[in-house]
């Protein structure tokens, strides 16, 4: 494949295609529904000799992440992919990866956490990992997942960043649905990704370094502070890498995506595929003259609070749709971040809190329409304080 061309691909296949083109030095992965297709496709690329990758078919996700840590510290470009319980099993090592400043890129196919066991989409897996020090990018479609996995390599490996990145897409809804995906030329991706240059690879045996020392009250805090400092550069770096990516692909990405929000009075905030559904509803309502819009925090970690506050503060009412529970009794995880982002603003929209779609429960246009109509009521003065569980049988 040497030319750009359109291919019918599922979200999972699109990601494995991106991985083939990136041709990482090491991939260590373990299968889990609905991520499995990524690993299967990639294994085929390996055994067909299409990549230079050393593939490590580990015996667990804990070992997948551990092997990525070893490979990345050794000086290799390392990738894995997972979902749900697999991500949960990696938890401990997610922190090790981020804290050792290892630029591992990991596509995640969002799936509910047990119990009860459920293979379908919600965001409880990656939301639980949101404070692990990883950069998190969310994607609406297969195209976005493909593009952002490629961009993520550059973000992760940027000398000011050196942090791991998760690129999330919705289980089944995106991962298993066939879409038109514009695949870039292999050469273009290769050139864009470039060569990894890690500052302190273990395999540079002439210059031995110690990774992961015992670090107590006299230094640990400074190291965490440095990690926060790296995070503070993520926005500027992402902006410039997205610009560069636009040059090779013609596709424009932003840390915060909006849809028809400029003159909107009310808006919905949501992640991933739900944004696609909501766009249709917005279009329909706009035709009826309603001033509605959408906001999609593509980058959820670090959280672009200022930009989001800027975009939402002028609205009269906003509904935050979380596809996971915190069990804090106060609503979903994104809600808390949106609310605190707006706290400093003088004018703030009224915020409605929704939890929806747990365990893959369908979210349909009628429900989104219902949310917009709730927002309309609130704009007129109706008070709604409680968290609304959208689409649940009470």
């Amino acid at each position: 494949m040497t030319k750009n061309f359109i291919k019918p691909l599922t979200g999972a296949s699109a990601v494995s295609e991106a991985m083939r083109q990136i041709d990482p030095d090491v991939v260590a992965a373990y299968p889990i529904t609905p991520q499995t297709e990524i690993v299967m496709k990639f294994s085929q690329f390996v055994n067909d000799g299409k990549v230079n990758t050393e593939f490590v078919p580990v015996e667990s996700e804990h070992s997948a992440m551990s092997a990525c840590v070893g490979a990345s510290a050794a000086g290799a470009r390392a990738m894995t992919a997972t979902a749900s319980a697999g991500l949960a099993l990696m938890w401990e090592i997610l922190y090790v990866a981020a804290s050792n400043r290892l630029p591992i890129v990991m596509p995640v196919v969002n799936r509910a956490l047990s119990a009860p066991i459920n293979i379908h989409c919600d965001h409880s897996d990656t939301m639980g990992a949101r404070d692990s020090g990883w950069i998190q990018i969310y994607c609406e479609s297969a195209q976005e997942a493909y593009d952002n996995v490629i961009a993520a390599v550059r973000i992760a490996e940027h000398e000011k960043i050196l942090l791991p990145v998760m690129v999330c897409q919705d289980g089944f809804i995106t991962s298993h649905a066939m879409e038109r995906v514009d695949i870039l030329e292999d050469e273009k991706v290769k050139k864009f990704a470039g060569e990894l240059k890690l500052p302190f690879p273990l395999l540079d045996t002439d210059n031995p370094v110690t990774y992961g020392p015992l670090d107590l009250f006299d230094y640990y805090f400074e190291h965490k502070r440095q990690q926060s400092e790296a995070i503070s550069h993520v926005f500027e770096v992402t902006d410039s890498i997205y610009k560069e990516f636009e040059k090779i692909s013609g596709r424009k990405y932003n840390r915060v995506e909006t849809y028809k929000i400029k003159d909107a009075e009310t808006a919905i905030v949501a992640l991933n595929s739900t944004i696609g559904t909501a766009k249709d509803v917005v279009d329909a309502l706009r035709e009826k003259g309603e001033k509605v819009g959408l906001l999609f925090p593509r980058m959820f970690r670090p959280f672009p609070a200022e930009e989001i506050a800027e975009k939402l503060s002028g609205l009269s009412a906003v509904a935050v749709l979380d596809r996971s529970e915190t069990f804090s009794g106060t609503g979903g995880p994104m809600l808390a971040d949106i609310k605190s982002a707006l706290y400093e603003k003088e004018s703030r929209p009224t915020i409605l809190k929704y939890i929806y779609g747990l365990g893959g429960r369908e979210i349909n246009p009628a429900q989104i329409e219902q949310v917009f109509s709730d927002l309309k009521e609130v704009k007129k003065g109706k008070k709604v304080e409680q968290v609304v569980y959208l689409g649940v049988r009470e």
Partner: protein
Amino acid sequence: MKLNIKEFPKIPERLGSGHRLCSGCGAPIVAKMVLMGTKDPVVVTNATGCLEVATTIFPYTAWKTPFIHSAFENSASTAAGVEAAYQSLKRQGKIKREIKILAIGGDGGTYDIGLQALSGALERGHDFVYLCYDNGAYMNTGVQRSGSTPRGSSTTTSPAGEAVPGKQQFPKDLTAICAAHKIPYVAQGAISNWKDLITKASKAFAVKGPAVLNVLSPCPPGWKHADDLAVEISDIAVNSKIWPLYEIENGQWRITYKPRDKKIRPVEDWIKMQGRFRHLTKKENHHIIEEIQQWADENWDRLERMEKATSSEGGSE
């Protein structure tokens, strides 16, 4: 290539002095001896535990060779990643030189919490050496029982009490578990038999594919013995056959040291040197010492049978 004994002292020191392990600790001796087994540069991965914690207190490090600690249960899978990186970069021509990879774990990090990662790495056939320094308990967290703790031993989670006299179970046979993976090389060693140990290390580094070394590592505060006894206590463990020295090379079992006549000691001699077994000298617990002796004898017999059964000379010794 297996090293010649004359070459051992020429190997540059890879674990320096100035670490903060207890005086008389066996672990750094084990690590240093094993690291003498190759002239090639070595990348070390180390599980959480005494050796890791006490050699890398930031901003100092005692390691003069590339080193990574990630977590407690993943030394083998971290090493698998390093090895995969090495293979990949070498194949792409980005690295030219020969580099060895050594994964280290304590008995807790190997027999227990890290067993799955170890098994996976052995099964996949990574080209690396795994070293377990076996001090028979979780020493770093204050002497808790592990799957390697000897029967009768008092630890903080298997204390000698009024009703239960220390750990009830015999240790699992890690060396045999590793051998069951049919990897090229597995061996058990002790610091008292340094030539035997370094030779085994050099074989382990020389083979293509995974190799495992399980080495007894005395711990004065955990075993409760004087801190100048690490070597002697290893020696008596070997001569009482509670810690036999043997290797499994391409499926062939071989006892590398057989104590004879006056050298042979009863396990009681070994037990009596250590405070962790003090309660066993009570009359009502004496049967435990006998059971341990029997366990050691049976284990030795089994080793001899394995040696015979797998010998290339067709079973004569």
